[in-house]
């Protein structure tokens, strides 16, 4: 127990100290050079703004997280379904992959205003942008995952005359799990970005709107507090995904070597 505590401390302490040092330097620099608060607020002012009404930030952050998560789920579901089809048929891959690349290379930020016209000012355009951003990395990873099957295991399953259905659920899907987790670690932050950007354009709520309004008002403490909450959300998601990954993929080598 004390061993695990000590190793946890070994992982948490250095970055925590580095972070504190960075904030201290920031505070000191702003005070010393007497930088105007509308240019760069000192961390203390940001913190004051946050503790003044933490509920406000959590609530708006909650909306953003909600939109990002829904978008992520939709984008991932669609990507995985498409990956299944493409992993089983080269023809489908040739027909659909170029379209997926079009989605990938199109700057979604440029599409956001169009989406507002299409989907109105509600939650929908944010979910769509988050889904679009998380779609491609998930598609590529899932496709690779469904194909990256131990050839020996595949041959053995074939010698058992396993049906395509059994082949998928008993072999391909579990083989793809490490890839899906790797993709999630990339796409969850992307979905978060997507939701925030969509809120800039069509905000009725969410941290994107908070940032947009605070920026127009030169209210830098609120702006930085919102950014801080976003960063914290991203870090938390990463930690949650990593813990889940280690639990679910205990059998996979990448999770085993990182102990």
């Amino acid at each position, binding site marked *: 127990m004390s061993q695990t505590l000590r190793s946890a401390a070994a992982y948490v302490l250095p970055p925590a100290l580095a972070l504190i040092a960075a904030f201290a330097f920031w505070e000191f620099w702003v005070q010393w050079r007497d930088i105007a608060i509308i240019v760069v607020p000192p961390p203390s002012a940001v913190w004051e703004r946050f503790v003044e009404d933490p509920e406000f930030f959590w609530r708006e952050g909650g909306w953003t997280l909600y939109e990002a998560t829904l978008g992520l789920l939709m984008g991932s579901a669609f990507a995985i379904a498409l990956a299944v089809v493409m992993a089983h048929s080269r023809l489908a891959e040739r027909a659909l992959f170029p379209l997926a690349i079009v989605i990938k290379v199109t700057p979604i930020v440029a599409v956001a205003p169009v989406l507002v016209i299409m989907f109105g000012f509600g939650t929908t355009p944010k979910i769509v942008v988050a889904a679009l951003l998380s779609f491609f990395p998930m598609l590529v990873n899932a496709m690779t995952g469904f194909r990256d099957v131990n050839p020996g*295991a595949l041959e*053995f399953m074939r010698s058992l005359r396993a049906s395509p259905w059994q082949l998928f659920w008993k072999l391909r899907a579990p083989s793809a799990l490490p890839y899906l987790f790797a993709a999630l670690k990339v796409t969850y932050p992307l979905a978060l970005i997507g939701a925030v950007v969509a809120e800039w354009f069509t905000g009725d709520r969410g941290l994107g709107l908070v940032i947009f309004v605070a920026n127009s008002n030169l209210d830098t403490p609120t702006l930085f507090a919102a950014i801080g909450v976003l960063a914290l959300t991203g870090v938390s998601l990463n930690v949650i995904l990593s813990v889940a990954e280690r639990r679910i993929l205990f059998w996979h080598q990448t999770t085993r070597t990182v102990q």
Partner: protein
Amino acid sequence: MAGAQHHVSLRALSHVFRDGRRALPAGRQALTALADVTLDVAWGQFVSVIGPSGCGKSTLLRIVGGLLRPTSGEAKIDGAAPAAAQRRRDIGLVAQDPALLPWRSVLGNVRLPLEIDRAARDRPAPSPEELLELTGLAEFRSYYPHQLSGGMQQRVAIARALAFDPSLLLMDEPFGALDEISRASMRYELLRIWQTAPSGRKTVMFVTHSIPEAIALSDRVVVLSPRPGSVRAAIDVELPRPRTQEMERGAPFLDYADQLRNLLKEVPA
């Protein structure tokens, strides 16, 4: 139990891999892996197939296992096509890579065949638990493959291959990836399993590179020539059973080894 005279009967078996899709060495031409292999394996016999690398040993085994159709010639298992035996669940397969599913426990891996074919559960066959007992894995049933040594993983693969209680066991260099020490002990472990399997002796076709392995295990050793593989000789190994590790140092064993070494050395005319 025997219907046909021989359990496995191969007649003028040839196999040619043609271009592109099959993994071929450089060059586009067809590659003849097997040429005119004729071979009979009696019921309950342990037969090793030995030969230089690339002589088509694995190809031969894959044809017998119904995983590959020969270009010409005929393979029969109990008088019928390999695919029929495969459908009857009468062939067990162990490859060099145990290819266990890493997310399944030892027991889960041994159960896999019965999950694929639920109908087979009603047939008389040792239960997965009994197979673990037989292969000495009972204590490791809830372990995962990455927690096991290579030799232990191969035991799991053997237990898994016995799930349908097949009468024919095909083994393709199952100990090829093991270190010399576990390799030597796995030989006798395999013999113990073979001799104590509850449903009587299975016919085994065992592909190997190793001369001592072939002698220690087999009733008969079939020597293949270099590519394209064909049967160069078949030697009956008349060492008493049960075989022991001590026999490997005895004169008869070493004589067989010499004989095989010479057969493998000969340059084809």
